[in-house]
């Protein structure tokens, strides 16, 4: 059907977008995909190119399964909403005792006759006597609510970091420590993440979004050492990390071709995975716990609240390898198994070897713990003339880190936040969106340098 690009296939994770609603779902032929109250017939989605837009037709049958039909054009949600927003003309307003003159039956009837979501919502709004009396703010809210319910277009997208991070943030910013996608973007540039580089990432409490983001930027070239607290990584992490798969043929560092597939060991059909334990994601932590050996100037373990367990991945190759371990009895070709089988123990050893050379190309911290001691400890693994960056939902811990890093002689220290404002852009109706996020977290960034000349001069 399409000249290039992948098709939507059975058993893989996708992001389903329906208006302003997003959901991560594993599509299975036999199953239906639940989108709010509507269930969609998955069989009708499979085989179409990833990114295809579908119109949902209310189907018959007991289950009222919605039948997706691929379409070239969809209605713009914003357009539909704003058209109603400016519906100051109320000549069609029905005089009625109730605030909503439209009955459920009438709406169903309209639907059966093939009215579009936009038409239905417009009719509902026109028939709402209370609508005109609402403030602009609540009008928008009202229409948005109706629109969401009756919007009948969806698209099926690859679970990229852009979409997964925005989805998590939309569902609940606190689930990912208020790490808004613009802040995530700043972290990646502040660390200058590039293919072929070696990055040390300490993440906890972000559903592994930062890990996935760095992996996406490595694209199979380079290394990522992921430090996490305790024996196993956050259970959901494996998911995010697999979900956001590059899903492309990428050349692994050893020259082999590694195909990364977005397969999850756990059906993520219910959207955001719980950040707690449980599920069938298991990781072997036996022998995997390694407290980094700091050398002569070793810092007592008390300095780190985190008994850092090291894990190493080499771009997509290791991503695949971890996936294999996590998925246990997943159906995978034996060829893959032999190619990527590497135990957690081996991973840890690789990671430690890499760290011991103390020349990582970037250090990225994004954790629930107070970062100051972790940062001071981990800085030793960073090469000179390389950037580090710390994300924190609060500003104050970063101010402490600022002074700590200043004392370490680091330069170009900066504490920043980004301010993000979305706009509705429509003919004659352009304005900033009525709601905005109040903040997306804070970032400290800086560079490690070598001040030995300074020291030499002082001792002279």
């Amino acid at each position, binding site marked *: *059907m*399409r*000249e*290039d*690009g992948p098709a939507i296939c059975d058993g893989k994770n996708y992001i389903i*977008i329906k208006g302003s609603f997003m959901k991560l779902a594993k599509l299975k032929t036999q199953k239906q995909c639940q989108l709010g109250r509507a269930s969609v017939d998955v069989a009708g989605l499979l085989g179409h*190119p990833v*990114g295809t*837009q579908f119109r949902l037709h209310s189907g018959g049958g007991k289950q009222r399964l919605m039948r997706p039909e*691929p379409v*070239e*054009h*969809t209605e*713009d949600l914003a357009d539909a909403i704003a058209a109603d927003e400016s519906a100051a003309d109320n000549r069609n307003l029905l005089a009625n005792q109730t605030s909503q003159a439209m009955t459920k039956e009438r709406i169903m009837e309209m639907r059966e006759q093939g009215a579009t979501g936009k038409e239905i919502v417009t009719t509902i709004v026109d028939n709402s006597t209370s609508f005109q009396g609402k403030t602009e703010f609540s009008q928008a809210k009202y229409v948005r609510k109706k629109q969401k319910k009756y919007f009948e277009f969806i*698209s099926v997208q690859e679970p990229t970091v*852009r979409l997964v991070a925005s989805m998590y943030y939309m569902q609940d910013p606190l689930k990912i420590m208020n790490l808004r*996608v613009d802040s995530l*973007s*700043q972290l*990646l*540039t*502040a660390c*200058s993440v*590039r*293919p*072929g580089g070696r990055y040390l990432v300490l993440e906890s409490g972000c559903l592994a979004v930062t890990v996935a983001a760095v992996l996406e*930027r*490595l*694209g199979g070239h380079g290394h990522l050492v992921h430090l996490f607290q305790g024996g196993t990584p956050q259970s959901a992490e494996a998911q995010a990390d697999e979900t956001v798969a*590059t899903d*492309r043929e*990428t050349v692994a560092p050893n020259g082999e071709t590694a195909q990364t597939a977005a397969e999850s060991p756990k059906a993520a059909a219910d959207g955001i995975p719980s950040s707690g334990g449980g599920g069938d994601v298991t990781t072997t932590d036996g022998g995997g716990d390694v407290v980094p050996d700091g050398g002569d100037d070793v810092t007592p373990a008390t300095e780190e609240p985190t008994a850092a367990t090291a894990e190493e991945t080499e771009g997509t190759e290791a991503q695949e390898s971890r996936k294999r371990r996590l998925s246990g009895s997943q159906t995978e070709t034996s060829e893959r198994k032999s190619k990527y089988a590497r135990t957690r123990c081996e991973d840890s050893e690789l990671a430690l070897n890499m760290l011991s050379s103390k020349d990582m*190309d970037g250090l990225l911290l994004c954790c629930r713990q107070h970062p100051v001691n972790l940062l001071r400890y981990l800085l030793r693994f960073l*090469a*000179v*003339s390389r950037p580090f960056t710390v994300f924190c939902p609060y500003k104050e811990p*970063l*101010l402490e880190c600022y*002074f700590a890093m200043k004392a370490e002689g680091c*330069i170009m220290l*900066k*504490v*920043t*936040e*980004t*301010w*993000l*404002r*979305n*706009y*509705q*852009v*429509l*003919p004659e109706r*352009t304005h900033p969106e009525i709601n905005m996020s109040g903040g997306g977290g804070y970032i400290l960034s800086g560079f*490690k*340098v070598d001040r*030995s*000349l*300074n020291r030499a001069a002082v001792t002279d």
Partner: protein
Amino acid sequence: MSFKEYKTHVEMGDTVILYLNIKNIHAITVTEEVKNKKGNMVPNIFQTVYGALKVKDLVGMKYGSQVQMTRGWAFALHPTPELWTLTLPHRTQILYTPDISIVLTQLELRPGSVVCEAGTGSGSLSHAILRTIAPTGHLHTFDFHEQRSRLAAEEFSAHGVGDYVTARHRDVCGEGFDLDSVADAVFLDLPRPYDAVPFAKQALKKSGGRICSFSPCIEQVQKTCDSLRKHGFTELQTLECLQREFQVRKSVMSVFDLSQPPTDGSADGDERPSKKAAMEERPREVLTGIPLTTMPGHTGFLTFATLPPVMTSAT
């Protein structure tokens, strides 16, 4: 050549970021000689506020180490696209890192991506794109200003990233990109981006892709969105992103202690704090981050959209 990958020591031909202090950062190309105003080759001496630097002395130095200057120290840093953005020679207005960061993420750029960019301008964004899509991707960048296009191309090859980029002198609003179904993403920073939208669509892969347009003025945004909708782009999103920097300060504020009863005993039962008690100020240290008194308040609006895959025939 130092943009291609990290290295440990400075070599001849490298671009070195010389950091003196936060207000004095320079990008210098390590050569033995430079052309002076008269066109003669003279030893490459770089003048800074801390004194003169014989540039060729940088060769062999470890990146990240200190450089002795006549009146102080500087640091020789390895270049990154972000440091380049801070130091590059401005031939046009440029995009800065806060916007660039969002562009990279929202266009879903990664190793292997094929990107079209217009105009090349000073190559600030181009360097960040190249870092992100190398070594398997490619950037096609266009500018209708002949000299800018040429200078950018020279810079790309001097920086060792020439293999990943094709810089062309071309009016993309009039003639298009001369590319058909190859790009994963298109970026427009042009006075009339809406005129380039149909060509952008043509340049994007049949499997669809992402587009971004950066415009300082809302009128341009308005027309661009109209054009994007008309040409079948979906998921339109216009946003503005500002970076707020905090100056980190340890400051001291005095705290009045009003909890003590008056000690002079003159007015028993008098609830009013005495003059003396009010004088009991104790200093308290506060650690704080203060927003800058002035900051960039507007750079431009970023409009993003998705081109869905082409439907060839209905099944």
